[in-house]
C-alpha cells in the first residue's frame, strides 16, 4: 500500500499577532490515525487495509423500520470511514425501500420501509456491500476553513480550561487551530457537528456544572471531541471560541454546512473580523469558508 499521505495542514491565515504560531503537524494529526494505513488522504482514497483488522460489523434491528450496522463501540477514524463508505455504497445502489441513512461515529442506521423490503433481505444487501467495502474510494471530501474568535467574550471557558489543563490559553488556541478535523457525525441537534482529530493534550472531562445555554456558533471541547454548535443548547463542554459561520440556517438553500466526512480547520480571528464576517449574508459567508473555493485568504 502507499505510504501515509502527508496530513499536515497548509499554513492558515495566521494566528492573531503576538501569539505563537500553531505547531504544524503536532500530535493531533497522528492522534486521529492510529495506523499509517489509515490513509486519510486529501481526496479519494481506499479505506481498509491489510494492517487494521477487517471490521465484522453486526447488523441489528432497531425496531421494525430501521436497522443498524454496528462497526464496534469505539471512536476511531477507521470505523467512521467504514461507516461513510457503506453509506455511499448504499446510496449509489439506490436500493428500493431505503428511506434514509444516519451515520454516527461507529454505526450506520438505515431507516427503511418494511412494506418494500424486509429485515432479512436488506441485511443481505448490506452484507454483500460490506464484503466489497475494502478498497472502495470515498467521495471527495469537502474542506472548510472556519474562522473562530477565541478572545473574550467568545471563549467563555478558555480561562477555566486553561486552569483545568495547566496550559496557557495561547497554547490551547494554537493546539486547537492546528489539526485538520474530520466531521464524524452530525447529530444531537440540527447541524450540531462532532469533530474527530482533537489534540490529545486538549482532552478534558466535562465541566462540573453545565451551562444552561450556549449560543449557536460556539466552538467547544469535551472529552476527546471537538464540536461546532448550530443552535442554542445546554452543554457541559468547554466553550473556547465562537464562529460567525452558521452551521444550520433553515432559510439558506443548503441549510446544513457540514456533512459527515467533511474536513474542517479553524482559523483564529480577532473580534473585529468576527464582527465583519458575522455581518455578511449567510450564503456569502459560507462560500468564503470553502477552502476548495480558492478562498484561502479571507
Amino acid at each position: 500500500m502507499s505510504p501515509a499521505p502527508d496530513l499536515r495542514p497548509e499554513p492558515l491565515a495566521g494566528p492573531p499577532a503576538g501569539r505563537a504560531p500553531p505547531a504544524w503537524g503536532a500530535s493531533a494529526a497522528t492522534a486521529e490515525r492510529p495506523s499509517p494505513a489509515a490513509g486519510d488522504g486529501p481526496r479519494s482514497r481506499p479505506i481498509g487495509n491489510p494492517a487494521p483488522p477487517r471490521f465484522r460489523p453486526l447488523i441489528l434491528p432497531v425496531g421494525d423500520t430501521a436497522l443498524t450496522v454496528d462497526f464496534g463501540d469505539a471512536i476511531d477514524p477507521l470505523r467512521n470511514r467504514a461507516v461513510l463508505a457503506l453509506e455511499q455504497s448504499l446510496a449509489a445502489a439506490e436500493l428500493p425501500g431505503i428511506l434514509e441513512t444516519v451515520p454516527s461515529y461507529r454505526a450506520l442506521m438505515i431507516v427503511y420501509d418494511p412494506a418494500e423490503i424486509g429485515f432479512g433481505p436488506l441485511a443481505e444487501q448490506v452484507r454483500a456491500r460490506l464484503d466489497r467495502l475494502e478498497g472502495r474510494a470515498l467521495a471527495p471530501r469537502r474542506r472548510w476553513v472556519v474562522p473562530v474568535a477565541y478572545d473574550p467574550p467568545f471563549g467563555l471557558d478558555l480561562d477555566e480550561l486553561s486552569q483545568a489543563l495547566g496550559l496557557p490559553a495561547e497554547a490551547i488556541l494554537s493546539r486547537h487551530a492546528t489539526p485538520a478535523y474530520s466531521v464524524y457525525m452530525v447529530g444531537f441537534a440540527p447541524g450540531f457537528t462532532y469533530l474527530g482529530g482533537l489534540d490529545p493534550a486538549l482532552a478534558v472531562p466535562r465541566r462540573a456544572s453545565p451551562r444552561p445555554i450556549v449560543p449557536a456558533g460556539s466552538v467547544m471541547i469535551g472529552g476527546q471531541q471537538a464540536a461546532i454548535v448550530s443552535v442554542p443548547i445546554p452543554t457541559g463542554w468547554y466553550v473556547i471560541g465562537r464562529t460567525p459561520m452558521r452551521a444550520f440556517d433553515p432559510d439558506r438553500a443548503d441549510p446544513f454546512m457540514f456533512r459527515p466526512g467533511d474536513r474542517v480547520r479553524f482559523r483564529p480571528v480577532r473580534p473585529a473580523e468576527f464582527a465583519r464576517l458575522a455581518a455578511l449574508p449567510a450564503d456569502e459567508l459560507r462560500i468564503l469558508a470553502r477552502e476548495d473555493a480558492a478562498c484561502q485568504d479571507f
Partner: protein
Amino acid sequence: MPGFLRAIAPTPFVTVQDRGRQGWRRFGVSASGAMDPDQLALANVLVGNPPGEAGLEFAFAAGVWEVGAGQCRIAVSGGAFAVAVDGVPVPAFATVTLRRGQSLTIGAAPDAVWGYLAVAGGFVLPDQLGSLSTHARSGIGGFAGRSLRAGDELELAAERAGGRGERRIVPPPPPAGPIAVVLGPQLDRFTEAAVETLLGTEYRIDRHSDRMAYRLAGATLAHRGGHDIVSDGTMPGSIQVPGNGMPLVLMRDCQTTGGYPKIATAVTADLPRLAQLRPEAALRFRAVTVEEAQRLRAHRMAALQRLLRSIPHRSATCVPVAFRPEPADRPESAERAADRPGLAAPSGG
C-alpha cells in the same frame, strides 16, 4: 379576507404536526410528526383532507379557540375529548362547521393524551425541510417553530368550508395488552436479568414525559459494562436505559443519536398506543421478532385504511387556495368500503 383560527386560551402544548420530516436525520433533525399519526389521519379524512395534512396536536386538552374570519369545518380525534361550540357540546370524531366569531373549546378526554384538530383545507404555513411538523426544541416548522400561544392566528387554506352534511364515526377501541418490542440493538450491554425484568414486570408512565421521551417508573435494569456507549442512531420507540437503570422510551421529537444503550425498540404498531397512555398508567412489554413486528405494522396500516375508507367521501365542499396534492394519500371512494365489517356506522349527512 382569508379565514383564520385564533388561539384565545390555548393549553401549553398545542403544535402543528403532520407525519413528520424524513431524510434529515443525518443532519441531526428529529423526524417529529404526530404522536398518534393514525388519529391525525382520522381527523383529516373526516374533514375531507388527505390523511397526512398538518393539523393541530394537543396534550390532554386544547383550550379555547375562535374562528376570526371566514368559516371552517373541523374535526377532533384522539379520544373522547369534551368538544363544545359556543358552549354547546358536540361530539369528537365528528365534523362540525364553525362560523365567524364562534368559539371552539376542547376539554379533557378520559381515555387519551394526544388529540388532533383538523380543519378542512389545512393551514397556510410554510413547510420547513419538507414538513409542517413543529420541533419546538430546535425551532423548526409549524407556527414560528413553536407551540401556539394566546393571540396566534392560523390562516386557513380553504376560502370556504363546510356546507352539506357533517360526518361522524365511532372509532374502534384501541387494542389492549402488552406493548410489543424488538429486543436490541444493544442487548449485549444488559444482563439477562435486565431483559427478564423488562419483559416480566409492570412499568408506569412517569409524569416527566413529553414529545421527546416517555420516562418509565418501575424496576431498574442493570447494565453490563457501563451505561455509556459511543453515540449511534436512535428511532422513536428506542428504549434507552441511562445510568440510573430506569428505562425511557424515545418518542417523535427524539434526538437523532444517543449515547445510552438501547435494550429494545417499541414496534411501530404499538407506539401510538404507548403515546396515549396517561401519566401513572401501567404497561407491560412483550418481545417479538422483527418479522412479527412488521406483520403487526402491516395489519395496523390495513385496519387504518379500512377505517378511513369507511368515512363517506363526498365531492369537496371546500375550495382549496393552496392545494397540496398527495395522490397516494387520498382515500379510496366510499362505495368500496360500504359493506366492510367492523366499521362504525357513519351518521351524518
